[in-house]
């Protein structure tokens, strides 16, 4: 058993180290310097190993720290109840949810896939040894934080210490339950694809965890101790069930399908994207177009993707109208708030850079363009002639700008209206600047996303992301927009600067597209 564990651990470590090296290699400048042979490089292997160990330690502690802090400790002041009991209350119910959603055993991960499906390791030995390891990790990972945050909330030390044991027991009970269920139904449960009923149970538990304290009800320590003793008894029974179960191979054959494994690995994996992408196509082919050439092609694309294009924007617009309606009512009714809103409107325009960034559909739309359209069209050389590329680009730019303009106009108009009814401004140009700058931001983001897509088209024919430059640019965009959140600048000057910047940026980037896109817009090899 120990041998199996060591082998599987080494295997996991090896690919983790390799993926660390791979990520290092994806960075734009470093890629040029480093060669393929670097997977053999000793120094890099050592760095990779260190990072891998840090990741392992991080996986033990970090999640639990964040979990206890954000889900429990930071929530305590909300309820204004006795903190020890509230802590235990939330902890108890969240632990049960964790038991259902986070079994470790039924999570289809890549390491299990490699070990049991590809390397054909003994499923039972692999599962049990790794399960023991996972449970030890859970126990050790929780201990420091239940003690620290528990004591801070004035929970007796012995309860702080049994809390991690409770977590482990609950997890084992649920794993055993799933195994028993499998014996009956022959259906293996994938913890990432829970049934509707399970989701309802989870929702109810969440309500119990936070809803009860909200209305002033929490469990006491005796109740927790009773739960603990029950969990201890059932947990020990579960160990027997887990240990004697012998159909792990069959279970994992069901759970560890390609699709599942890659879906959990990251949401961006090509399988998932491809599937999601094709789900976005609306089957109704009664949509037709009377246009010609590129316009025809593009119009059909837009009509058959209305779910992510027009419908999403409609939803956004409804929400925006709702928010402004509420704000307008408040401002009209309350003079104090009106004054504050008026002040904010004249200095908080930078915040809207982030809002406009978040609202912009550019990322989703360009991704759909690639997955459902260009991914296949770019394999046709004729589609890559400058005339076609630029023709389609023009149609797309029009659509993307228009789509994003709808919420932008609503926000611009809403803000201008708010400024007026909250007391107005001496400088009447402010109204125009406020409105136009919001529009300018929206156009800027639309142009930005589409231009980046045409200049850096990052995917290959298998829809794998091949350009890290693209990710870096996207990250930077986010970072810059995020940076504006806290900034307070006079709306007049900031707005003016935004308008000028947007115009210049759009012009420059459009020229760039016209010059470069016929070369850059192709499938990565």
């Amino acid at each position, binding site marked *: 058993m120990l041998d199996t564990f060591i082998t599987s651990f080494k295997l996991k470590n090896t690919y983790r180290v390799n993926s660390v090296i791979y990520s290092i290699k994806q960075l734009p400048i470093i890629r040029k310097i480093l*060669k*393929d042979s670097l997977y053999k490089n000793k120094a890099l292997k050592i760095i990779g190993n260190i990072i891998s160990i840090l990741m392992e330690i991080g996986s033990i502690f970090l999640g639990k720290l964040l979990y206890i802090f954000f889900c429990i400790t930071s929530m305590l002041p909300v309820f204004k109840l006795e903190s020890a009991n509230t802590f235990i209350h939330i902890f108890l119910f969240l632990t049960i949810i964790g038991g259902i959603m986070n079994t470790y055993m039924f999570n289809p991960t890549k390491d299990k896939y490699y070990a049991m499906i590809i390397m054909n390791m003994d499923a039972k030995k692999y599962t049990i040894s790794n399960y023991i390891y996972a449970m030890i990790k859970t126990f050790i990972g929780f201990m420091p934080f239940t003690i620290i945050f528990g004591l801070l909330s004035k929970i007796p030390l012995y309860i702080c210490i049994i809390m991690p044991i409770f977590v482990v027991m609950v997890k084992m009970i649920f794993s055993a339950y799933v195994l028993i269920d499998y014996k009956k139904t022959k259906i293996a449960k994938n913890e990432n694809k829970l049934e509707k009923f399970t989701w309802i149970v989870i929702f109810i538990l969440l309500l119990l965890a936070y809803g009860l304290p909200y209305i002033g009800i929490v469990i006491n320590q005796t109740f927790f101790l009773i739960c603990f003793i029950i969990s201890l008894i059932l947990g020990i029974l579960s160990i027997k069930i887990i240990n004697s179960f012998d159909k792990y191979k069959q279970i994992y054959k069901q759970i560890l399908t390609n699709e599942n494994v890659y879906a959990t690995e990251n949401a961006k994996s090509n399988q998932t994207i491809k599937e999601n992408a*094709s789900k976005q*196509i609306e*089957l109704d*082919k009664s949509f037709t177009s009377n246009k*010609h*050439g*590129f316009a*025809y*092609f593009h119009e*059909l*694309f837009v009509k*058959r*993707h209305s779910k992510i294009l027009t419908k999403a924007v409609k939803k956004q617009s409804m929400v925006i109208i709702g928010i402004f309606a509420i704000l307008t009512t408040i401002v009209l009714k309350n003079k104090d708030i009106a004054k504050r809103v008026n002040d904010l409107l004249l200095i908080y325009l930078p915040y809207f850079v982030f809002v406009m960034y978040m609202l912009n559909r550019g990322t989703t739309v360009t991704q759909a363009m690639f997955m*459902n*359209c260009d*991914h*296949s*069209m770019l*394999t*046709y*050389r*004729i589609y*890559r*002639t400058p*005339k*076609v590329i630029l*023709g389609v680009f023009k149609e797309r730019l029009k659509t993307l700008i228009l789509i994003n303009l709808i919420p932008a106009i609503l926000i611009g108009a809403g803000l201008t209206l708010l400024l007026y009814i909250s007391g107005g401004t001496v400088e009447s140009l402010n109204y125009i600047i406020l409105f136009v700058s919001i529009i300018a931001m929206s156009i800027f983001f639309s142009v930005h996303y589409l231009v980046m897509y045409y200049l850096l088209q990052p995917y290959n*024919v298998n829809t794998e992301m091949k350009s890290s430059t693209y990710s870096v640019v996207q990250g930077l965009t986010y970072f810059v927009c995020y940076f504006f959140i806290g900034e307070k600048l006079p709306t007049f000057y900031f707005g003016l600067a935004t308008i000028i910047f947007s115009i210049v940026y759009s012009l420059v980037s459009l020229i760039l597209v016209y010059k470069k896109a016929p070369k850059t817009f*192709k*499938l990565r*090899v």
Partner: protein
Amino acid sequence: MYNEIDVKGEKNMKLVIKHLKKNFEKKEVLKDINFEFEKGKIYGLLGRNGAGKTTLFNCLNEDLDLDGGEFYINDESDRNIKPEDIGYVLSTPNVPEFLTGREFLKFFIEINEKRIKNKKTTDEYFDFVQIEKEDRDKLMKDYSHGMKNKMQMLVNIIASPDILLLDEPLTSLDVVAQEEMKQLFKDIKKDHIIIFSTHIMELALDLCDEIVILNKGVLTEIENDKEDTQSFKNKIIEALKEE
């Protein structure tokens, strides 16, 4: 070889490749490719796994930048290859799934309007690749692999590009579809330079007029001196094995 005159008295078009090189980091995948492909013939490009067949196609399709050398079309005179001169059919068919077969075809006909010589109706094109009437107005999302393959082939030949690169185009088709496709290639070959990459020797021998081998980064033509099939096969295998 040069100034060859074909039956109609026109000079025969050629794809000329000179000293083409492509490396991936230190690995020289294509070392020194020199070849002339002529119109009217189907060339079977054989090579072992990883020999660089797809890399060669990607270079010719300008998906990859060259590390040396050049290639061009020699017609009346030498000229650079434009995107519309090349049709590249991948082994896995890629068609935009949000369109119906007919819409896809319509779009291609419209953007190629000026280049298509004797334009036919969409139904005539569908008949040509034998796609059933009831399938023509379905979204291609619901097409079978073979139908997608046919659509891909169809739009690639519709504008009649001078050069057709076919990367393992038949491997995933059923036997009937394979035969249909083979017949299609034979029907259109007189107007094109067709380069057909495959692992399957029988297919190459059956369909292709010339056998070209890519080994060790170099292209060589295997002469068939009217030998019997078996000894020709052996000759090819020997050439592929050469270290």
